[in-house]
């Protein structure tokens, strides 16, 4: 009986010291340091959509009826060391689970005006492809990007960007991509890489107006199969297929020096053409474009409109099998367009509410959609590029 009492007494006497030592213990003793944790943010997109049709014409590239968690993404950024910075974006959807949207490093200091990115990244093809879903002005990506890239080009790759020493901003990017996009590449050999070139020019027309004009080209060996579920082989007579995509992008922005927080106007558009070079015989291109305008007329309010168009020639229907072949028949020369009108309420940089109306035509069929989207970001999210 005496011994337990002694232990208890000893515990009471030493308890304050135990507590004190716990308070002063730091990472050198615990091995747990939070000092160098990356900046972490989580973005979540919800939407509800009502359609004029029971079955959506193009659900995998646009919106679906009902209420959906469109995407939840976790972004982590941190400097690796003196030489590199790193970014990781994990994005998950209800249907497709979680994927690494981006995981790459960028050089911090090279002796020449060049930066190098390596890893899995949204590749520098045009401007819109660099936007994450939560950064887009509309609830879904433009039709033509969805058609060509399905819906974005994010490959394991290496890109080098050179700030060309001219009086205006000129950025020349060259990249080597793994070439795993099943619609465009996925060559037969492991070393069938794809190659990318992008030239970006920005001119300050005045203190308030900025014009951006860019051009992109992408090419790579394509696998000798159709991108259907069974990966059906193409004709045995075909030896080689090479994908070629080129695009041009334009971005015109007005933001006044005084009161720039309250008013702005953006006009943005891109044109893309994708074709296949089958044994040195080029197909007609899958082509299309989008143009969008965003008018901010108060700090929190924006009105937006977008028009998008695509045309897929008959001989590409097996290589670019979207929209659903079952719906529109496999061998048609198919075209489609989408008009989108939206009003956005953006109370802070970290939340936005959007109401959007879509008129979609694919072939001779029409669909009308009304959608409401909520976009929220928590945590430390790096600012978006211009």
């Amino acid at each position, binding site marked *: 009986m005496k011994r337990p009492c002694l232990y208890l007494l000893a515990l009471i006497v030493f308890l304050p010291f135990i507590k004190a030592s716990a308070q002063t213990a730091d990472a050198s003793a615990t091995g747990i340091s939070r000092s160098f944790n990356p900046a972490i943010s989580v973005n979540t997109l919800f939407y509800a959509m009502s359609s004029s049709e029971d079955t959506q014409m193009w659900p995998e590239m646009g919106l679906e009826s009902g209420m959906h968690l469109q995407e939840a993404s976790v972004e982590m950024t941190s400097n690796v060391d003196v030489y590199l910075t790193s970014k990781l974006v994990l994005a998950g959807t209800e249907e497709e689970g979680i994927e690494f949207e981006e995981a790459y490093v*960028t050089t*911090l200091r090279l002796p020449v005006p060049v930066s190098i990115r390596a890893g899995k990244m949204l590749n520098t093809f045009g401007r819109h492809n660099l936007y994450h879903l939560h950064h887009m002005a509309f609830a879904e990506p433009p039709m033509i990007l969805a058609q060509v890239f399905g819906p974005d080009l994010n490959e394991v790759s290496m890109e080098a960007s050179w700030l060309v020493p001219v009086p205006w901003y000129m950025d020349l990017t060259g990249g080597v991509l793994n070439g795993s996009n099943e619609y465009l590449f996925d060559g037969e050999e492991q070393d069938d890489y794809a190659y990318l070139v992008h030239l970006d020019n920005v001119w300050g027309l005045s203190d308030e107006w900025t014009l951006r004009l860019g051009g992109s080209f992408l090419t790579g060996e394509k696998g000798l199969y159709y991108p259907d579920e069974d990966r059906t082989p193409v004709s045995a007579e075909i030896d080689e297929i090479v994908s070629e995509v080129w695009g041009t992008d334009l971005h015109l922005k007005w933001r006044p020096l005084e009161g720039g927080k309250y008013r702005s106007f953006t006009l943005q558009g891109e044109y893309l053409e994708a074709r296949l070079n089958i044994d040195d015989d080029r197909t007609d291109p899958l082509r299309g474009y989008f143009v969008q305008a965003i008018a901010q007329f108060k700090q929190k309010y924006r009105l937006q409109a977008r028009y998008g168009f695509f045309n897929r020639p008959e001989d590409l229907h097996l290589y670019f099998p979207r929209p659903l072949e079952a719906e529109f028949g496999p061998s048609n020369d198919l075209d489609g367009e989408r008009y989108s009108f939206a009003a956005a309420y953006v109370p802070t940089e970290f939340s936005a509410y959007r109401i959007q109306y879509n008129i979609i035509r694919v072939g001779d069929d029409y669909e009308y959609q009304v959608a409401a989207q909520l976009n929220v970001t928590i945590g430390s999210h790096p600012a978006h590029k211009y």
Partner: protein
Amino acid sequence: MKKNIALFVCLLVLLTAVSAYAFGKLQVVASVPSLASITESVGGDNIKVSSITRGVQDAHYIEAKPSYMVTLSRADLLVYSGMELEIGWLPILIKGARNSKVTVGSEGHLNVAQVLSEDEILGKVSGEVDRSMGDVHPLGNPHYLLNPYNGLKAGRLIAGKLAELDPDNKDEYEKDLEKFQAELKAKIEEWEKKAVPLKGGKVVCYHPHWSYLLDWLGLENDGYVEKRPGIPPTARDSMKVIKKIKEKNIPVVIVSSWKEPSKARKVAEASGAELLILPGEVGAMPGTDSYIEWIDYLVDTLASSPAGKGG
């Protein structure tokens, strides 16, 4: 064709090399005009200074325009306020400029906020910070140059950095610093005399921008029109402020020139207070083209307002 491409590439490489040495003067880029002005004063003719933002712009909400990257790509020294004032755009510019002279940790990278000791920082949030509190600066209010004593310290820090980067002209930087400090100290004495009637006076500000100025002049800030920083007030918030101004007979409502003034104006009109629209930065209004002119304007305007006349 190949020859032409090779020639073009060679020309561009040559241009890159030449552009780095094209200017004899030290190229300095400041994030805001007040820092550009101080740098110009202590750097004299040996440097060329440009500011990324203009006085009429709210430095919290600048877009990282590629043209700013071009400017920064040619800089030998980057001077910025720090305390997260430029967090929305400066990191993108530094990355896009691809200039190893001004990246974090390089010799040409100068965060001027280091002149403040912990107890000199105003508006530092203690405890947990989250965005339901509005646009708070967790590290404290970054507008510290509104206190001219901090302007003196900034001048000393920047002159020291210029001398370090350009040791051949060290003596001239020291001379220019002495001249700047003598002029600023004389003005401080003059301003403090003018500000005597302001001591103990009360004002209401639209946004917590003016803390360092009010603290230096001995004015008491008795609340904000914005209930949470950066979030426009609701009608109810405004009514509460109007009631307070009336009850306490507060004579002045202050708003920065870069804020949309309509809500502050309504509060001032409904409460009978005078609305003062003050230049938020150097160059924000006519007659504020240098750091000293800016502070001069602020002190003069406050001293001649009802806040300086005992209400």
